[in-house]
């Protein structure tokens, strides 16, 4: 997807966009596990889900319709309504 455009930015100084603020812990938070539907991803996320629950998080699962494209904006919108945190896996 990455064509070689000429960037208007001086990469040495470009101010990076900030990340979303992080909670102190995941305990009590809702974590959405986003499966990109590559092989072994579901089983891998099963294990991650178990570990997240053991750490006190509430979890939910969802999948991306096609792993080779960014998730539909509708899906992103749904996720932001339903979750505080997201784990996306497994890119192989």
């Amino acid at each position, binding site marked *: *997807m990455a*064509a*070689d*455009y*000429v*960037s*208007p*930015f*001086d990469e*040495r*100084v*470009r*101010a990076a*966009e900030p990340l979303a603020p992080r909670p102190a812990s995941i305990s009590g938070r809702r974590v959405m596990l986003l499966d990109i539907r*590559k*092989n072994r991803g579901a089983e891998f996320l099963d294990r991650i889900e178990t570990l997240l629950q053991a750490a006190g998080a509430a979890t939910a699962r969802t999948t991306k319709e*096609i*792993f*080779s*494209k960014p998730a539909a904006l509708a899906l992103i919108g749904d996720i932001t309504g339903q979750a505080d945190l997201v784990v996306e896996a497994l890119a*192989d």
Partner: protein
Amino acid sequence: MTESDLSQVGAPLPAPALSVRGLGPAEVTVADLTAGGGALLLFVSEECPTSAMALRRLGPLCGAWQEAGLTATAVFEDPLEVAVRVARRLGWQAGVAAEDPPYRTSRAYRLVSVPTAVLVDRGGTIAGTVTGWDHAALVALIGRAGALLGAELAIPEATEPRLKPGCSSKAAIDPELAAAISVQAGTDDVEEMFERGWTDGLPVVPPTPDRVEAMLGSCDGRVSLGPVPPDMGEATLERVAACAVLAGCRPAYFPVVVAAAQAALDPAFNLHGQAVTTQPAGQLVVVNGPVREAIGLNSGMGALGPGFRANLTIGRALRLLVTLTGGGMPGRLDRATQGQMGKVGFCVAENEEVSPWEPLHVERGFRPGQSVVTLIGSDAPLSISDHRSRTPEDLAWILAWAAASAWSTNWWPLEEPSVFVICPEHAGMFRAAGWTKQQLRRFMFDAVHKPAAELRRGETTPFVHAAGPAAQVSKWASPESIVLIVAGGEAGRYSAVLGPCTGMGSQIVSREVGSPWPLTT
């Protein structure tokens, strides 16, 4: 995911006919491709990293394969222009073909994923397929091709990963969804610019190397105009050209963009202050001289509005330099409380032809035949209607008092410039009365004054506080704060005044447009 099938179950399968677009006008057929002895079809898609890897790794081998009789063709499940671009980027110099939705060819070849390599023999029979990147299977497939041709064919090196699955073939997706995805493929470049944050909120022209090169012309892209505040990104001419491309400029506009950038980066202009202030400051670019006509700048009807590529894109190119290269993006480092639309870009060409006076650049010491840009930090235009004044004095009074609230109602006197854009009909009244620019300026300066007592409400200046209540206070610190240019259509009596950006010592800066600029657009 990485099956390879070199054995044939039952009767040999004929390679289905191709329904693809090639680079030439002639139809691409299996028979043509196998004419040399055999064909390797490599089905790929643009967004698939494994496909990219396959193209990169197999590309260098195709030349020697061709000589031995094996013709390789990359069949893209993408538009042809995308295929050509991707192939070039990955160094694939062998055949390129492209499929349109609903990807009949991929379906006919029963593709589930890409990349898929299909070997077809001289008789048009499928002699083997490899799905995904599977080094061992590909070596076997190439060996098979060599056996068919009676030659030893080069094989790819066994670099990691030796095994990598591909991505879903578009043929394996529901046809409607595939068509919907493909429709987006044409706009991916535009969306990519938004994704990367390379826009001002409007779509931009993606700055491909070809476009930037064309924009630079004979300029050396490595030359730097200096750091652009507030981030201090270095304004190499290449980056300035990228901003000009993004903005939609033609190469003919580039010398004007460069001159505007040079003026804006002059420390006296204090671009830094303007880029991060809460004020609605924009960088007004006034253009004078022969370059206006040469590149189609509009100084007539609609001079302050939309409709003319040169005006809009030159102003925008400068702003993109500030917001991208300089990082002065609204909502982040640019803290303008409300901003104004002039910050999308504001380039005005003076209507020297109908003006009764010397143009701005001549006032500022240039020769009439020089092409010059003048940068002024300013806020949004305030429209001044006057359809009924019958004397130049009345008109001048109306124009001057329109600016009474420029910057702030009672903040008098104002040192920084107010820019009046006088329309041709208004200028005509002064011409008929024989008023020089200086006379008009002096009259306007003298016309706007109030006793200090009337200015002592709300925000006002220390000067007003210190003055005696009856002391007359002028709107401007001096007549030189009144800048006068002429622009607009010949019918209608609307002039305008632009207020200043204040408190940052910003000077008006002029710069000659570097020549030679092309005289044809």
